[in-house]
Every structure is written in structure tokens, then in C-alpha cells.
């Protein structure tokens, strides 16, 4: 009978007991986010993938030999491991030859990531066009563009356009929630279970 590995505590204990399902559970639970963060930092998908794999390997080796002192901090431990690897790579600028000792890592993490992106991308262009067409006036459009495109400060935008922070928040909030609403249906179709 297979055990449940939903919480970080269960995962840490399972890996320490040599349970391969616990290792897979960790990769499924944290893989996507770890990859996302690394890709954002490196701006390089392949490099992010390498770092993600390497971080998992480092953490798996550690957890197999001894559990971390506070299993609830598993995400923080994964994060610091990944970021340290990234920083180390940037500093040394060395070419790595990472040998993955778990073939499931790439399959599990990347499959879900690609599906998610495809589904969001499918709807995003349409959603933005619709949001812009639904804005009541040029000023609201300018609020959106100034904040997100020109990276202007909220207070500065309000001052320049002579509007209240409340109005600003309303326009931004409406755009955020409308966009989410327009792409949400597809996102929910992402499979929760992935078999390696």
C-alpha cells in the first residue's frame, strides 16, 4: 500500500526512508515553481532546467542521508539550494555536466509546465484585446499601460492624470480579474496527476 506524500513533512520522512514515491512527490509538488523562478532569473529555459535538476539532486542526496531539521521548511531549503547553485554558476561561469540520477525529474516537471504555458498563451492575446476594448476611456487605458508597460509609479500616474488612488486601484484590479477570468477555463484543464 502506497503512503501519502502530500505535506513537506511526509515527503521528507519518505525520502529519508528510501521511498522513491516520496522523491517523485517532491518533484511534482515543487518542480514547476522552482523551474519558473530559475527561468525568470536566468532567462534561459535550458539553463533553468539544468539548475532545477541539479537542485533536486543536491536536495535528494541530502534528504536520503539525513532529514532536514525543520521539514516544514523544505520549500525554503529547495529555494536556497537552487539560488545558491545559480549564484555559483554566475560567479564561476563554468560549464556543468549534470548527470541526472532520477529520470523522472525532467518528464514530470516540464510536461506540466509546457501544458500550462500553452493553455495560457492560447487565450492571453484574445483576453488582452478584450480587456482593452472593454475599458471605458483612453484614461483608463493609459492607467493600465503606464503601470504595467512604462513601469510608472502609482502615485505619479494618479498625479499626472488627476485621479484618485481608488480609481486607479479599481481599473488595475478590474483588468487583473478580467484577464484571469478570460483565461481561467483553460487553466483548470491542466491535469493534476502526471505519470512519469
Amino acid at each position, binding site marked *: 500500500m502506497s503512503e501519502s506524500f502530500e505535506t513537506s513533512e511526509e515527503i521528507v520522512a519518505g525520502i529519508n526512508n528510501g521511498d522513491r514515491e516520496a522523491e517523485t512527490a517532491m518533484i511534482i509538488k515543487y518542480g514547476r515553481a522552482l523551474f519558473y523562478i530559475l527561468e525568470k532569473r536566468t532567462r534561459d529555459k535550458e539553463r533553468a532546467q539544468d539548475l532545477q535538476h541539479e537542485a533536486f539532486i543536491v536536495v535528494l542526496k541530502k534528504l536520503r542521508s539525513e532529514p532536514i531539521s525543520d521539514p516544514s521548511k523544505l520549500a525554503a531549503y529547495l529555494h*536556497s539550494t537552487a539560488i545558491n547553485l545559480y549564484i555559483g554558476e554566475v560567479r564561476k561561469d563554468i560549464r556543468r555536466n549534470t548527470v541526472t540520477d532520477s529520470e523522472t525529474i525532467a518528464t514530470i516537471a516540464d510536461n506540466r509546465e509546457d501544458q500550462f504555458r500553452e493553455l495560457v*498563451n492560447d487565450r492571453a492575446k484574445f483576453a488582452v484585446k478584450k480587456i482593452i476594448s472593454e475599458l471605458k476611456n483612453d484614461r483608463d487605458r493609459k492607467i493600465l499601460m503606464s503601470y*504595467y508597460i512604462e513601469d510608472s509609479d502609482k502615485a505619479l500616474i494618479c498625479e499626472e492624470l488627476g485621479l484618485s488612488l481608488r480609481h486607479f486601484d479599481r481599473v488595475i*484590479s478590474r*483588468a487583473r480579474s478580467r484577464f484571469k477570468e478570460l483565461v481561467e477555463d483553460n487553466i483548470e484543464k491542466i491535469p493534476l496527476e502526471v505519470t512519469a
Partner: protein
Amino acid sequence: MSDTPMSQDDLIDRYILGKLGGDELAEFEVLIIEDSELLKEVQIREKLIQELQSHEHSTAPSIASENKLTEASTKTRNFSAWIRQPLSMAACTLLILSSTLAIQYQNQPGAMNNRLVPISDVIDIGGSNRGTELSASIPSSDSGRFYLRVDVGFEGANGNYNVFVSETNTQDGTPLLSTTVTANDLGLFGLLLEVTREPHPQYSILLERISSDGSVIESETLTIDFNVEY
């Protein structure tokens, strides 16, 4: 997700826009790793911002096609906020450089493999009330062509503009480009300039906002310097 949705929304925005740093950044990234719903929120918001950028660029008239470069091959990055701060202290007639700047390098003319140079390689930009000077540095590199994209115009003043581009230190003053373009609603339009390999090239861009009868309402001159030889 959170008891304070606005606060988390702002955090998401700040994360995507690169405004989180140090412990704040690390803590937020750990939250993303722990919370798959937050990751979705972040990715959706990031896509919103990307699509808004894409939409904005696709609606802005550009003369990029004259340079035989496609929009897809040009990396652009917003930097108006960067230059906006010093300029905002000046009069409302300031010229606002906005939206995007991209420099593209090709190994050889016509070569397919391009290397994109990020905006972070542009080291300085400054301005004055009526004349805005832009200085840019391109890292030393192999021979090849560089392209500079800059979106210009008078903030909020849409309509037609006369544009004259000259290479001031190597040419006799004859404009490399002389055209009339229409700015978008924000008063901006894009220029894509091929930068020559002459040492320390300097470009001058004269903008004239014109009325329907062709008379000049206001004008501004930009100079773009490259302070390295490449």
C-alpha cells in the same frame, strides 16, 4: 489565497516588474514554491503584462520595415520610467522618450544569427528642458551591424510628426531619413535605426509635431551618442 488580496496583488506585480529584492524577493519566491495557486496567479499576471506590451507595440506605427527587420527579431524593453524621473522635474513640454530601446547585432550583414544586446548595456541617459540627450554604450564586439530602436514623441500628443534622422559626425548633414509618421494615442512612435560602424557615431533625431495644415506646433532634437568604438 490570502486575507489581503490587494497586498498580494501588489506583491505579484512588484515581483514580475522586478521590484522585489533581497529578503523580500527570497521570501516571495519561497511562497511561490509552496503555493501552486500563487504560482498560477503570478504566471497569469506575467502573461497579462507581456500581452499588454505586445499589444502596445503592435499598435504603435513603426518604420522598422524599412530596415528589413521584423518585429519578432527585435528585442524591446521598456525604459520610460528610467528616463522619466529626471524629466518629470522639468516643464511639461519635455520630450519623453518612452517604451522601448533595443539594439540588435548581426554577425554579418544579412546573417541569420542575431545577438541581442540588453538595455542594461546602455549606461547613461540624461536630459534638459528642451533638448534631450541620450548616450548609449554598446559593448565591444565583432564586426557587424547594430540596430537601435527608440520610441519617441511628445507625451500625450498624438497626430503627425515630421522626422529627420542624421548622422552628425560623419555625414554632411543630409538626413539619413526624412519622413512623416503618425504617433499612437500616447504620442509615441517607433524608430529603428541602423547604427554604422564608424568610431563614436552620433545621431541626431529632429521631431516636429505638425498640425493638419502642416505647420510645426512644437519640435525637439535628440542626439544619440555611442561612447565606445565598436
